[in-house]
């Protein structure tokens, strides 16, 4: 077991996003200031290819450990400040997405993640697709990319703080 402990701690101190240190500290300050220390996020997949989900999940790995800044992924939309939506909104997921939206308490922010959410990307003309997201619920911020990398998602959260402040 000790072999792991040593490695994990070395990672934390030496290898975490050396190129984005500034960004991470800025994010912590912004969340402290704007949201009083924590931001709860509920991820909702409306028809992604799963790569967007994988990148969101990666935010919790030891390289990014996004919970340090107060960003926590929660199990229910009822606990959420932010709905982070991925995917092109399939016909079958439209109703669940709207239900999740309705169940998130006010005030709430909707962030869309990945090109699929913005214009349905490659899936635009399908009979089974009802997107984009903004056709159905208000969207406050879009994070582009296919999929956006973890650092882009972190940058996105920072932008969100700045907008909320204004």
């Amino acid at each position, binding site marked *: 077991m000790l072999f792991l402990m040593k490695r994990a701690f070395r990672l934390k101190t030496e290898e975490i996003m050396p190129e984005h240190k500034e960004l991470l500290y800025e994010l912590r300050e912004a969340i402290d200031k704007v949201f009083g220390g924590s931001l709860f996020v509920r991820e909702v997949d*409306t028809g992604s290819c*799963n*790569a967007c989900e994988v990148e969101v999940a990666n935010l919790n790995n030891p390289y990014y450990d996004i919970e340090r800044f107060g960003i926590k992924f929660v199990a229910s939309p009822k606990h959420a400040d932010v709905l982070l939506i991925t995917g092109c909104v399939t016909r079958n*997921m439209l109703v669940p997405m709207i239900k999740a939206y309705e169940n998130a308490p006010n005030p709430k922010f909707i962030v869309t993640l990945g090109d699929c959410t913005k214009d349905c990307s490659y899936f635009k003309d399908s009979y089974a697709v009802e997107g984009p997201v903004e056709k159905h619920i208000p969207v406050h911020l879009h994070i582009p990319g296919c999929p956006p990398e973890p650092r882009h998602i972190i940058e996105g959260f920072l932008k969100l703080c700045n907008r909320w402040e204004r």
Partner: protein
Amino acid sequence: MFIEEEVEGSNLYSRVRDAIREGFYLFGMVGSDERELGRGFAIRYFFMKKGSVRVFILRTEDKFPSIVSLCPSSKNYEKEIRDMFGLLPEGHPDSRRLMLYPENWNPAIHPLRKDYKGEKPEFKVYGRYTYKKVMGDGVNEILVGPIHAGIIEPGHFRFSLAGEAILQLEIRHFWKHRGIEKLCEGKDPKQVLKIVNRISGDNAVNISIAYLNAVEPLLGLEPSERVKVIRSILGELERVWNHVRDIGWLFMDIAFPLVAQHLFSLQEKLMRFNKSLTGHRFMFDVCELGTVKVDFNRDRERDLIDLLEVIEEEIRQVEEFALETPSVRDRFETTGRVFKNTAMELSLCGVCARASGLERDTRVELPYLAYKDVNLHTFEEGDVMARFLVRTREIYESIRLIKLFLKNLPEQTEKANKMQKPEPYSWNIGNAETPRGNAFFFVMFDKDGKIYRLKYVDPSFRNWPAIQYAVLGDIIADFPLVNKSMNLSYAGNDL
């Protein structure tokens, strides 16, 4: 490579029975609307036995005999053909819809018929899906999803419990149905490749290899030996990072987050390497028609080998840790068992098949690209431990293969040959072993060289039903563990 045979409704049953007796198993059923060509609807049954493929073609106007009683793995294929083409599988035990939901879709509209032009029916409730009901004293139900608690894809799971033990699990999928097969029709093969990369993002490389294996021969393209080897390396690299992540999730669910996070940081290392090699963390769009976008040089080879040596060393320690730690063995062993005969009846593939004693791996059954002499690792137990060990052993095997490929990387010789227009209405199949199992494509071109019909079968489409058997008798707290040990895709399944 394959033997085709036209069959009638009346002798289908006996032909399928003979094939199964000879050791063939069903790995794909493809419907297609060929009425414009004066050939009615065609249903193609693809059976495989190591090294050979047998195809039965059945032509029909409205209905076809169900083979579920003979070959249970045909169940969802037949339902799919009913939804998509409106053909009736006679004698099918389940009349409910599969991917088109009665809650929002007019059941009279069948999108893969050629006369369907894409107009959407009004969004309203046309009917209700009825779930199976378990009755009796003290039976209770737990409903989960479609939106789950974690950062994962949507699907609906219904557990019926007697006390703690799971009596029945019913899964309703296809929430993410994007209509990909219809979307590909009328597009050229290059455009479709982009979509193919986005069927199931974490398996993008291997799925696109399967697609290219189908279309390249029809287009008269033969990738150079170097390209073939590089594609194989990328495919194995994808397998390594997928397996590392999947093993990580197992430890997350049994209260060993330290091991899990350690593996996730290895996954991150691998994804960063992907990015430095191909410009993309998931290696999207790296394979192109006839070629591949990356090349290796000395430095890159060295970096890759160094990284893989670290990974192998770490995974060996994790494996040793798992085998030596009683509480890990307690959770992994005998949990989520899929017995060999169940695996056979359901025509499982990939990790799930190999963990249940079936020697199934496309790299061995229908070798492609640079693969030869791949060592298979199979276990008889069919439990979480077996699937864990299949993954660790496959990581070592993939690393061995990558090193071998790099050592024997041929020089780039001839320029990629020129693309030809495919024969009108010619078709082909393509296979590849993704980290989850066999990916299967059927592609037919039209007279203008565009896609006329594309069918994709994801390994998860075959393997999802196995979870319903694996959890029986287990406690509900073991479900996440069983689920993660298979780590099936929703996106690829729902299509």
